[in-house]
C-alpha cells in the first residue's frame, strides 16, 4: 500500500546483539551506529547540569525510548538531537557526521510534539504539504505524497479541515503523518500520547509501533509512562537526574534491573533493606534489618558487610507451599489485605516489619485465596531476588 517509504526488511538484521544491552554503546567505531551521543552534557544556567555525561548509540531502524520521571532531561536530549538546544559539551552524530553545527532545518529529522504543534491557520493538507513545499517538491508530487500520508494514518477524508476541527486523537495522527510525510530517516517524538485518554493512547501506541516497523524508520521516543516504554520499544533508556541509569530491551529492564532506581521505576517492585552477610558466586546471603536471612542474587554488591536493597517482583513471590522451590529461605508474613482484581489477586503482606509488601497471583482454579490476619510463609528463587545498591 505504501510505495513512498522504503520498507527495510533488513531492519532486524541491522540490530546488534542486545543480549548485553545494558552496556552503553559509547563506541563511535560501531559501524551500525546511526545516532550517537558521546559524552554529552547540557546546562541551561551554567550552574546545574541537566544532562550529565550522556553516551548513547543506536542503529538504524531501532525504536528507542527515553523513559524517566519529569525533569530528568529527556526533552533536553531530544531538543539537542533536533538542534533546538546546543550541547554544552560533547558530540552528537547522525549517520557518522557530527551535527553540532547543523541548523535544525537541515537535519532532516521528523518530529512529533507533545501538543502536536499543527499550524492552526493551515488546513490539514496544507500542514502536511508544508515540509514538501519548503523542499521545493512539485505540486502534483506533493499532492500525491500528502494523500498517501493521510491514508497511512487513515485520515484521508480530513485534508480540508482545520486542526481545531479534529479531535485530540485525530490531531495526533496528523502530527505523526506530518513528521513522516517528507520521509525522514529519524523521527523524534516527545510524549506524543500524553494528552490522550487511556484507550486511545493504547490504540495509538500500537499504531505508532506498527508504522515505524513497517516503514523501517529510526525512532527516539520520549515518555514518562513505563507501560508505554515497555510495550513499544526495542530498547529503553531509563533517565534519572540527567543520566541514563540503564539502557536495555524491555524484558531485560524489567527482569534484570541494574539498580534500585530502575527496579523501583519499572513495574511494581518489593524492596527489603538489609546487609550482605556473605557472597557465594551467583548467590548471596542477606540479613534483613529485623534479623531474618534471605537468599539473593548479588548485582550491585561486591563484599560482605555492604548495605543493600533487595528487589523482588510481586509475581515472583510464592506462598503456596507445594510450589515453593526446594531449600529456599522463607520469611514469615501476615496477610493484611486481599484485593480481588479479576485476572489476578493482589495481596498486601506485612514482611520483616514493613506492611507494603505485595504479592500477585494468577486467578486459577486451584489458587489459594488468603484472608486478612492469616499467618503464612513466603519464598522465592534466589535469582529472582536481586541485591542492589542501597
Amino acid at each position, binding site marked *: 500500500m505504501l510505495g513512498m517509504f522504503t520498507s527495510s526488511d533488513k531492519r532486524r538484521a541491522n540490530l546488534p546483539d542486545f543480549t548485553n544491552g545494558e552496556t552503553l554503546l559509547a563506541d563511535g567505531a560501531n559501524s551500525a551506529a546511526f545516532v550517537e551521543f558521546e559524552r554529552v552534557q547540557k546546562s541551561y544556567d551554567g550552574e546545574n547540569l541537566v544532562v550529565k555525561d550522556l553516551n548513547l548509540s543506536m542503529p538504524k531502524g531501532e525504536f528507542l525510548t527515553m523513559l524517566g520521571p519529569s525533569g530528568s532531561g529527556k526533552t533536553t536530549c531530544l531538543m539537542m538531537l*533536533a*538542534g*533546538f538546544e546546543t550541547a554544552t559539551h560533547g558530540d552528537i552524530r547522525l549517520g557518522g557526521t557530527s551535527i553540532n553545527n547543523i*541548523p*535544525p*532545518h*537541515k*537535519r*532532516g*529529522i*521528523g*518530529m512529533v*510534539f507533545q*501538543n502536536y*504543534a499543527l*499550524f*492552526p*491557520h493551515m488546513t490539514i493538507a496544507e500542514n502536511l504539504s*508544508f*515540509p514538501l513545499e*519548503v*523542499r521545493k517538491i512539485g505540486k502534483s508530487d506533493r499532492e500525491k505524497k500528502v494523500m498517501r500520508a493521510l491514508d497511512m494514518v487513515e485520515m484521508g477524508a480530513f485534508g480540508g479541515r482545520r486542526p481545531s476541527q479534529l479531535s485530540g486523537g485525530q490531531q495526533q495522527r496528523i502530527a505523526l503523518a*506530518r*513528521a513522516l510525510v*517528507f520521509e525522514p530517516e529519524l523521527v523524534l517524538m516527545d510524549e506524543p500520547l500524553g494528552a490522550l485518554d487511556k484507550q486511545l493512547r493504547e490504540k495509538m501506541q500500537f499504531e505508532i509501533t506498527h508504522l515505524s516497523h513497517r516503514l523501517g524508520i529510526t525512532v527516539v521516543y520520549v515518555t514518562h509512562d513505563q507501560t508505554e516504554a515497555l510495550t513499544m520499544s526495542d530498547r529503553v533508556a531509563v533517565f534519572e537526574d540527567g543520566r541514563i541509569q540503564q539502557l536495555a530491551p524491555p524484558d531485560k529492564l524489567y527482569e534484570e534491573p541494574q539498580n534500585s532506581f530502575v527496579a523501583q521505576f519499572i513495574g511494581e517492585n518489593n524492596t527489603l533493606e538489609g546487609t550482605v552477610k556473605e557472597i557465594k558466586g551467583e548467590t548471596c546471603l542477606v540479613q534483613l534489618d529485623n534479623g531474618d536471612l534471605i537468599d539473593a542474587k548479588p548485582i550491585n554488591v561486591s563484599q560482605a558487610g555492604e548495605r543493600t536493597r533487595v528487589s523482588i517482583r510481586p509475581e515472583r513471590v510464592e506462598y503456596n507451599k507445594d510450589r515453593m522451590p526446594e531449600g529456599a529461605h522463607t520469611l514469615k508474613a501476615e496477610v493484611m489485605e486481599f484485593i480481588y482484581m479479576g485476572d489476578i489477586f493482589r495481596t498486601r503482606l506485612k514482611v520483616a516489619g514493613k506492611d507494603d509488601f505485595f504479592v500477585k497471583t494468577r486467578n486459577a482454579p486451584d489458587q489459594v485465596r488468603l484472608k486478612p490476619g492469616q499467618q503464612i510463609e513466603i519464598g522465592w528463587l534466589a535469582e529472582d531476588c536481586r541485591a542492589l545498591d542501597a
Partner: protein
Amino acid sequence: MSDITDTGPVIAADGTPLKRSLARALRRQKIRALMLIAPLLLFVLLTFIMPIGDMLFRSVENNIVMDTLPKTVVALQDWDPDSGEPPSEAVYAALAADLKVAVEAKRHTRLGTRLNYELTGISSLFRKSGRQIKKWDLAQDAPFKAKFIDMNDGWAKIAVWRTIKTYSPKYTNGYFLNSIDMQKGTDGAEARPENQQIYITLFKRTMFMSMVITISCIILAYPVAWILANLPARTSNMLMILVLLPFWTSLLVRTSAWKVMLQQQGVINETLVWLGLVADDARLVMINNQFGTIVAMTHILLPFMILPMYSVMQTIQPTYLRAAKSLGATNWTAFWRVYFPQSIPGIGAGSILVFILSIGYYITPELVGGTKGVFISNRIAFHISSSLNWGLAAALGAILLAVVLVLYWAYDKIVGIDNVKLG
C-alpha cells in the same frame, strides 16, 4: 413506540409543550439579565447613541427658514429663479409680515447667520433690515417691494432669493454637498469655485496620513511586540511599563515635546548642525507640516498598536516555530509562513484602532501640523467652536463615520472581523 409520540411535540411534565415551557423559563432569565444591565444601557443610550443620532439629524435638519419665514416660503413657491426677475409684491409682503414677527422674537439674525453659510453677505442684510422693519406698519406701508429694495438693494438680488428658496425645505442635503466641496446651484448640485474647495482635499489628506501613520505604527510596533512576547515574563513586564509610560503623561506634554525636538531651533536640528550634517542656513523643516504630524501621531498611537499585537503574539507558542524548522523551514520561512499569519489578528486589531483613532485626532495636528498637516477633524472642531456652523460639522462628522464604517466592512470582507483580537 406509537407514531403520535414520535412526531408530535414533546410535552413537559405539566402537560404544556416543552418548547413553550422552555421559552417561559428562558424569558424570566432574560428579563432579569436585562434589568441588571438596564442602567448601563440607559447611560450608553443617553451619552453615546443619542448624541450621534442628534449629530446625524443636524447634518440634514433645516427647519430655521421654514420656521422663521413661513409665509415667504409659501409665497416663493410660485417664483421661478430662472426668470431673472425678483419675486412679485406678494412675496415681499409675506417677507415683511414674517420679518416683523421674527424681529420681535430676535430670530432674524440667526436666520441670517444660517443663510450666510450659503451666500456671504446675507447675514448683514438681515441684520440691517431688521432694525428698519421694526418701525414699519404692516397695514399702511404697502407696497413693500419698492420699500425693501429702497432700504437695501440686496433685496433685489436674484441670488438672495434663490438662496432663500433653495433652503426653504425642512431638510436639506446642503451641508453634505458643502462637505464634498459642492453647492446647490440653479440645476441641482454643482462644484464650488476652485478657491472654495477644501474638504475633499482634507478628507484625502486625513485618509492618506492616517494610513501612513498606521503603517509606520505597524512597522515600529511589530518588533517591539515580538520582543515583549518572547522575553521572560519579568523582563517583559518591565519593558511593558516603558510602552505604557506615554499614557501616563499628558497628550499636550508629549506633543509639545515633539515641538521641542522637531522645530528649526530644536534638538534634532541643533544636533545635525553641530555634527555638520546640515548647514546652519538650511535647517530641516520638520514641524508645522505633514512630517511633524506623522511623527508625533505615530509616537502617540504606537501603544495602541503594540498592545493588541503583544496579546496575540503571546498566545503563539514557540513550538510552532520549532515544528516549522523541524519540517525543514529556514528561520525566515518559519517566521513568514507560520508565525506571521498567526500574528495577523493582532496587526488587524491594532491597525483598526490606530487608523480610527488617527482619523478623528485633532489636538496633535492642530499643534504640530501647521496648515499642510491638519486633518478633517480640525475643520470639524473649527465649525463647532468658531464658525458655529454645526450643521456642516455634523455633515463632515457623518461622512467620517460612514468612511470608518465602510472601511470596517471592507476589513471584515478581506480579513474577517473574527480574526481580530483586541485583548
